[in-house]
């Protein structure tokens, strides 16, 4: 179980993060997409935007409601997944793979390790 997503970290706001060098890939967790239901609209941050940790920087909307997506760490947006803007259902079908939201260049990669690992996130979900 510990090896399942050993390189992935999670936030209490239900974002996931993977790290490649100083580039972090960010999305929402499978739990999040399931709670939100079918997504009908996604707004992603502009390229080059500099964002603080925990800053709202993307929006997901289901039939019923809009929700913010927060930056898990501080940094600069370097790439966005525009295919999920065209087809938000990709996030419902593959939230933690093809349904990634954006990539950011981190200010400090050490912060990555401070986020929850899979076991901690699973424990957090059970506490909800």
């Amino acid at each position, binding site marked *: 179980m510990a090896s399942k997503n050993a390189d992935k970290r999670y936030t209490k706001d239900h974002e996931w993060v993977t790290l490649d060098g100083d580039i972090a890939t960010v999305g929402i967790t499978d739990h999040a997409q399931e709670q939100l239901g079918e997504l009908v609209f996604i707004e992603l941050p502009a390229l080059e935007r500099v964002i603080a940790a925990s800053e709202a920087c993307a929006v997901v909307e289901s039939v019923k*409601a809009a*929700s913010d997506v927060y930056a898990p760490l501080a940094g600069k947006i370097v790439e966005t997944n525009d295919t999920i803007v065209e087809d938000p259902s990709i996030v419902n079908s593959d939230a933690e793979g093809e349904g990634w939201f954006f990539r950011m260049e981190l200010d400090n990669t050490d912060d990555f390790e401070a986020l929850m690992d899979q076991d901690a996130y699973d424990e957090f979900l059970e506490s909800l």
Partner: protein
Amino acid sequence: MIENALPDDPTPTPLKTTPLDAWHRRLGARMVPFAGYAMPVQYDLTGELATRCKGGVMAEHLHTRTAAGLFDVSHMGQAKLLGATAAAALERLVPGDILGLKPGRQRYTLLTNEAGGIKDDLMVANLGNETLFLVVNASRKDDDFTHIAATLPAAVTLEPQEERALLALQGPEAAAVLSGLAPEAAQLRFMAVAALTIAGIPCLVSRSGYTGEDGYEISVPATDAEALADALIAHPAVVPAGLGARDSLRLEAGLCLYGNDIDELTTPVEAGLTWVIGKRRKMEWDFPGGLAVRDQLDNGPHRKRVGIRPEGRAPARAQTDIVATDGTAAGTITSGGFGPSLNAPIAMGYVRKDLATDGTPLHVIVRGKPLPAVVAPLPFVPHRYAT
């Protein structure tokens, strides 16, 4: 990001439950607080039901448009108004022609206040035998019943029906489904009401609903609600559907949600509901706020309820500001979301009279940005009621 996935509900706990509470949970409902009740917002369907519809707001919505959805609306207030002069007594509170409502017929009407504002919208049925049957909104029922009871003459009594559940079977297959259990259901015309025995259970059935589709609302003793719900979903065309789909269906159908689209500060003229004022009532205007409503009808309202279609994919939710193309304030959205049948965002709101014509370009301010939108005719999805 989950915390704000549903609108905050200021309702204090503990929540009341409907007679179908355990039934919903067994079927995989996600329960949310609504008007003081724990209500199913959507279902995660399993087993045989999942082969009909996977569940979720979008799927339940689309299934209701193509087959049939079963909604629990037991949170709504049901009451009998009894007495030889019940209709005359109710006319003191509503603009509708209640004296002219024939036995076996139902009518949509409004409780108005002295300023012509809307205290609630409701259904009134004439059951014959000096009995009217009222269905009012959950969030308003306590106030409504107090308000009605306070004005009644001694010979008329209001009897809230707290031991009854209310189910809505909606969709193009609804008539076939219900007729299979009670053949008389097929004969009911739109807005007709009758006492029918369904699967051995005595029910009060009206051919009406809140989705724009053909369908029925079925009042049933609380103790029989589960048996009735089971009998209805036994038909392969039917799936349970939650409040989420109910809201998107009624918005596509251009129907008002009390508290959003109409309230004490909106009038029937502004809301485009003057058709509820009975022809005879327009001679006397003798309902609460009648003269104010007549005055507004004569001089034109300052604002009107309209349909709005935002361009693009971003929904514009309730409370969104609307501005004219010249940048001046135009109004506010009162209901907005995504229309699954249209695969596009849709909204209703109030705009200045000069901007209320279909096709008028506007902007809606979503997350600080003006997005182009256009005034559109209501309903967004044509009604398909029985004749």
